[in-house]
């Protein structure tokens, strides 16, 4: 919880809002720290049955903050060679932490969910979006490797489809994301997203909280969601690819 990620609890429903709209909610180290704090706090809130994660403004989360993954200060980067690695490791830890919440977690994908942002959605138990939202993993288009989010996409849609999505890069519409299983619920327009989300959130609140938590815990065991080491290794790999000259050049070109 900080100015970049806020938590609001109303009865059994918690809402975590990524609050960096002027940067399309891009992930900076400070924003991830805010999200960590929200999730840490939620672990102490046993009365919460459903947690909704959403973005302020037009985007859900546009992925990594370019200025923090570009290393060369003269090119607009941070000047801190270790920062991308810290950022990716923080994201990796956050994904497992979110997955292990006892409440059912819903990603309310209000707009662009790109790269790590789309991965963040895939970690959630349910993804709700609208037909025109843009989702996807364009990492390979920039010479990057989406290694932290890959395990979550595999768990979400299966190994074969995940490979096809990650290797092709690019972004897709909410409608297409629903077809391939990245989104579970898709509303026809952005205006219907609130109603579509409220409907499913309401169903979860009607269920027995203990039954939900026990079922979720079993699912986490069976699909090895608690494997922190796997995503931390993903963070190492992703950081190594990101540090290459070619990737850095692509990121700098993108920033301009």
């Amino acid at each position, binding site marked *: 919880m900080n100015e970049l990620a806020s938590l609001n609890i109303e009865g059994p429903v918690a809402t975590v809002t990524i609050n960096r709209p002027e940067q399309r909610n891009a992930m900076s180290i400070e924003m991830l720290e805010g999200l960590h704090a929200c999730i840490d706090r939620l672990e102490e809130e046993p009365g919460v049955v459903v947690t909704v994660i959403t973005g302020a403004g037009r985007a859900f989360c546009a992925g990594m903050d370019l200025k923090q993954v570009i290393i060369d200060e003269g090119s607009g980067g941070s000047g801190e060679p270790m920062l991308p690695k810290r950022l990716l490791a923080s994201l990796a830890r956050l994904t497992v932490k979110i997955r292990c919440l006892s409440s*059912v977690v819903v990603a309310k994908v209000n707009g662009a969910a790109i790269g790590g942002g789309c991965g963040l959605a895939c970690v959630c*138990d*349910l993804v709700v979006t609208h037909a025109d939202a843009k989702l996807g993993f364009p990492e390979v288009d920039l010479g990057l490797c989406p290694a932290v989010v890959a395990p979550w996409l595999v*768990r*979400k*849609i*299966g190994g074969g489809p995940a490979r096809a999505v990650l290797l092709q890069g690019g972004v897709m519409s909410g409608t297409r994301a629903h077809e391939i*299983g990245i989104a*579970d619920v898709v509303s026809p327009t952005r205006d219907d997203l609130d109603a579509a989300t409220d409907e*499913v959130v309401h*169903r*979860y609140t*009607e*269920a*027995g*909280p*203990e*039954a*939900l938590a*026990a*079922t*979720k*815990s*079993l*699912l986490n*065991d*069976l*699909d090895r969601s608690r494997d922190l080491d796997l995503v931390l290794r993903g963070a190492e790999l992703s950081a190594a690819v990101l540090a290459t000259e070619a990737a850095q050049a692509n990121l700098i070109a993108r920033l301009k």
Partner: protein
Amino acid sequence: MIRIETDGGVRAIVLDRPDKRNALTPEMLSDLTDAVRTVTAAKGDDAAVRAVLLRGEGKCFCAGFDLDLCRDDGPEQAVMKSFLSGLSAAIEAMRACPRPVVLAAHGAAVAGGCALLGGADIVVAERDAKLGYPVVRLGISPAISAPFLMDGAGAGGARRRLLDPALFDGAEGARLGLVHELVETRDGVTDRAHEIARSLAGKSVHGIKATKAWAMESAGEKTMPGRAARALDASLSLVTGDEAIERLASVWKK
């Protein structure tokens, strides 16, 4: 309430309690398990059974557990526990059967009825069939279905459907991979399932047996030993809790 019909190489196991929408009793589950195990154990003449068809009599396949039987369950929830253990055993028996199991899901296959789909190799469903796992509303976990749904529909599909109590239709079941063939009409479901079972019964027993076992092993059946037992434990451990007892009691008050 379980009827057995043998026709050529096809052994049909029929849930035969149409006035109760084939709602399951612990006895029906144990009879179902026995009927499948008889096929598995058969030597000699009985080995003539080369495919199994599981279907329901009347308007739907199966409405789940007959909760009326839990009405006088004590704090130990003995009847509910026997339901859950019986369901897990029935699904396991279907999966362990060396003969292919075809299931006809017409009308509705809900809660425990939907869980039975996890035991079948080929599920034929009506496009508009009502499917789903609404039991979390009663404070009961559909955990028993988790390993089988993860094999069939993938981990994401299992997470989607086991946490959300909403029912879904046959077409969504097919999208998930839980249903393998859709039929437009209610009456057509059993006919088509029977046709598939007859066709399977005409194939080489050894080829089918080896392929079924290997397909399950390839899908991860053996990679996490005791998955089914663990899932059953997750369900059993909840039913004596306050949440399940209070929510089940509210069913009778309605």
